[in-house]
């Protein structure tokens, strides 16, 4: 007769694998392993884990399966952790994929929260020159990334279509030998969209991204322009693009202003009415004009967190009723929480996304580590100005202290508080934000709106994930996008 193995066969001595934890107010403890897989434990279970006296065989199995503990000497858990960790970081080797071109500072809108010190329509000295544009394309192609995304912004990029065309054609010409995957996006309020622009977009596979803050009165209040018809023009533009190029060729971004608070359901309904099933509940950015204190649109992060929670409750309710809607930021977080993929979203990566995930070429030839870095420069703070296309090569731009120092200092794996944070694998480093708000690329996380916001999002998503099987299934679907 064979010797029977029993299920309770006691394993050898245990040891911890690296893990981090966070207490919940209801007494549960969140435990995450070194790649961000999570499990909730009761206080008693957590003590058992801490003391490595785990009597409950089911708990022990879960902790071994989640790579929180191992039997002494076991190598497979470490091998699997290494695979997952390597997979989470492999995008780093690709370097910069997103290349933003500020083709003009001119704009015919005068939005209160604008991140750009816009210029009036007539002043062409704020347009990018052909020489600068070609040098920027050259620099973009120095990045080893197999995917290059060219994003045109402003100001209002439709006011300088000449340069948009030049960059697109130049990139496509260069790519004939290189065979990379190129993508082109125009970030525009669409007020100036015409047939010529659509012909161009059609011919070159260009996508549009536009601003839509919600219902008509809210949007027009946020986004003044002569005639107070920004919403009407945006909707008309969206309709034209969809008719001509297809539904998927235009996406919309919203910004939460003080006027949006309390209106999250109306905003989501507006998106659905307009045929958008992705919505990004985005807090107002603290840069540019929006950084000005005491402006009437200011609100604190706690107010945004309530706004987000209410919006997500509504979105989950809509999905349960059969209307698919995705909250884009949550979907990015969930991808990091539930898979090993790194979506490469600039604000949610560590090392930070500045420079190595995105570069910004300003109209005047200055190169910035991010859009926000340029905003600071518009206000006199040159910290994130990496150099100038006329003087610097790709190598000097990417290896200068202006980029490497904040990258290294803000790295969440070593930054104070982040390195001990149970959410670290899902979070990101935002040295520009923390520099802008505290004068230091690391910042003090307990006071950081960036940290407060992300913690609130992580906690909300985890609570719904554990409590509600419907949400859990939906979250896995979002993570898969």
């Amino acid at each position, binding site marked *: 007769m064979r010797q029977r*193995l029993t299920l309770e066969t006691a394993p050898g001595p245990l040891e911890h694998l690296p893990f981090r934890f966070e207490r919940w107010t209801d007494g549960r403890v969140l435990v995450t392993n070194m790649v961000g897989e999570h499990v909730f434990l009761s206080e008693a279970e957590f003590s058992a884990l801490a003391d490595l006296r785990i009597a409950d065989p089911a708990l022990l199995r879960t902790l071994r399966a989640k790579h929180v503990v191992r039997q002494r000497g076991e190598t497979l858990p470490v091998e699997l952790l290494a695979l997952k960790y390597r997979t989470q970081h492999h995008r780093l080797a690709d370097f910069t994929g997103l290349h933003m071109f500020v083709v003009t500072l001119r704009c015919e809108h005068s939005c209160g929260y604008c991140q750009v010190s816009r210029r009036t329509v007539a002043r062409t000295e704020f347009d990018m020159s052909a020489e600068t544009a070609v040098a920027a394309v050259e620099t973009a192609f120095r990045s080893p990334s197999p995917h290059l995304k060219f994003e045109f912004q402003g100001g209002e990029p439709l006011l300088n279509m000449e340069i948009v065309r030049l960059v697109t054609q130049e990139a496509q010409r260069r790519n004939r030998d290189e065979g990379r995957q190129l993508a082109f996006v125009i970030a525009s309020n669409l007020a100036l969209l015409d047939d010529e622009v659509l012909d161009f977009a059609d011919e070159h596979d260009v996508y549009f991204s536009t601003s839509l803050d919600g219902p008509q009165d809210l949007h027009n209040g946020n986004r003044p322009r002569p005639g107070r018809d920004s919403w009407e023009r945006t909707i008309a533009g969206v309709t034209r693009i969809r008719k001509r190029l297809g539904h998927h060729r235009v996406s919309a971004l919203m910004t939460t202003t003080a006027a949006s608070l309390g209106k999250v359901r109306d905003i989501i309904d507006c998106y659905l009415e307009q045929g958008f099933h992705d919505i990004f509940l985005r807090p107002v950015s603290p840069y540019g004009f929006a950084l000005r204190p005491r402006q009437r649109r200011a609100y604190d992060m706690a107010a945004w967190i309530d706004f987000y929670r209410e919006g997500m409750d509504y979105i989950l309710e809509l999905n349960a009723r059969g209307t698919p809607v995705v909250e884009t930021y949550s979907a990015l977080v969930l991808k990091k929480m539930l898979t090993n993929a790194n979506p490469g979203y600039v604000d949610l990566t560590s090392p930070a996304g500045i420079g190595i995930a995105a570069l910004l070429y300003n109209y005047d030839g200055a190169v910035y580590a991010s859009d926000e870095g340029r905003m600071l420069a518009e206000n006199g703070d040159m910290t994130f100005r990496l150099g100038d296309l006329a003087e610097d090569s790709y190598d000097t731009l990417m290896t200068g202290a202006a980029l490497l120092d904040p990258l290294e200092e803000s790295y969440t794996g070593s930054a104070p508080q982040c390195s001990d944070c149970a959410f670290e694998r899902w979070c990101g480093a935002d040295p520009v934000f923390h520099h802008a708000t505290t004068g230091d690329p690391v910042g003090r996380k307990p006071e950081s709106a960036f940290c407060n916001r992300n913690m609130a999002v992580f906690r909300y998503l985890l609570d719904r994930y554990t409590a509600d099987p419907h949400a859990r299934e939906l979250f896995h679907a979002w993570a898969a996008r």
Partner: protein
Amino acid sequence: MISLRGRALSATLDRPLTRELWRLVSDKIPGPDEAVIGSGGGTLNVVRSGGDAGPNTVVLPPHLDHLDGGDIIAVSPDGRRIEVLWRARSRHNSLLLTERCDNYCLMCSQPPKERDDSRLLRRASALVRMLPPTAHELGFTGGEPTLYGSGLVSLLRTATQCLPDTEFHLLSNGRRFADPGFTAEYASVRNPRLMVGIPLFGAEPSLHDYVVQARGAFDETVSGILALAQHRQRIEIRVVLQKNTAPAIVEIAGFIARNLPFVEKVALMGLEMTGLARANLAEVWTDPYEYRNELAEAALLLRHAGIRTDIYNHQLCVLPRRVWPLAVRSISDWKNEYLSACMSCSVQEACGGLFASSAKHRHSDHIAAIPHPTPRAREAISSAQPQDMVMPAPP
């Protein structure tokens, strides 16, 4: 139920047969390895149970009367024992390569026997050479075929050369693939139509090792899967739901999704009431109705990880409707049965029914007719992009 082996009613032979494998033909002059089914005239003639026993003739027992031209049988030298190895009309033929195994699963349908049966490997190699190039699919099972090491690789190489268009499916416990030398040799067959199906019964060693009754098996199996992935081999993971694995099914699915997302397919399988499953009934039986929600959650979790996931041997009436599109009507035509409840069921056509062994020995207490069908379009469940892991290059 159609059986695949039996004793002849009678056999009249001039002299003992010197070859074992015979392809049945009905409408052409027989070649040297072909037996005529129906009328006489060949080196060997095979007639159905009611037919006349002429010279050099084997008379089939009634349960093998379904044999027909194109089928391949093994006949013992005295003509008395007959085994069906290839059924031309079936799309799922598989060959038992050995009864030896280094696992001893609690619910094994083919309980391992420790004895030299390498003649099965030689027979498989001969059979593969006899198959028509139109053969759709051929499975290799055990026991544990990889115990042959290079011998198995030679068979796979022969099969690849003889049958370039056939889909091959190897069933293995995966442990041998932990040996990088063996995995490299296996990969050197370079057959894009070869897939290996490997059972996984836990997300960590203790549960898996208990179910397969072998200490250290989990580590070897998972290392084997990783080694196969390094060589870009096609992998299917099979999870049998039974009393011990069912409560852990979401955890197992999560483990696969997070650690082994490169596998091509996961099969979530109901228990077949044969072999050791019957001997160990109390240790392995659980009513699928009890774990139906966890099964659905696990299946969808895998789907969202970009892994093709099928549910086998589960009756539609014990599955939540949202995973009906994943249920495969897998039980082959000659193995399935229906209960009286099924007769008034609106989805009987789409349902796999029950294994005959389940119908006879143990099945869910919740088999109940579905009064109104729901469409079970597979597309109803959107599938995600497959995810990859960044693997180091093979050694």
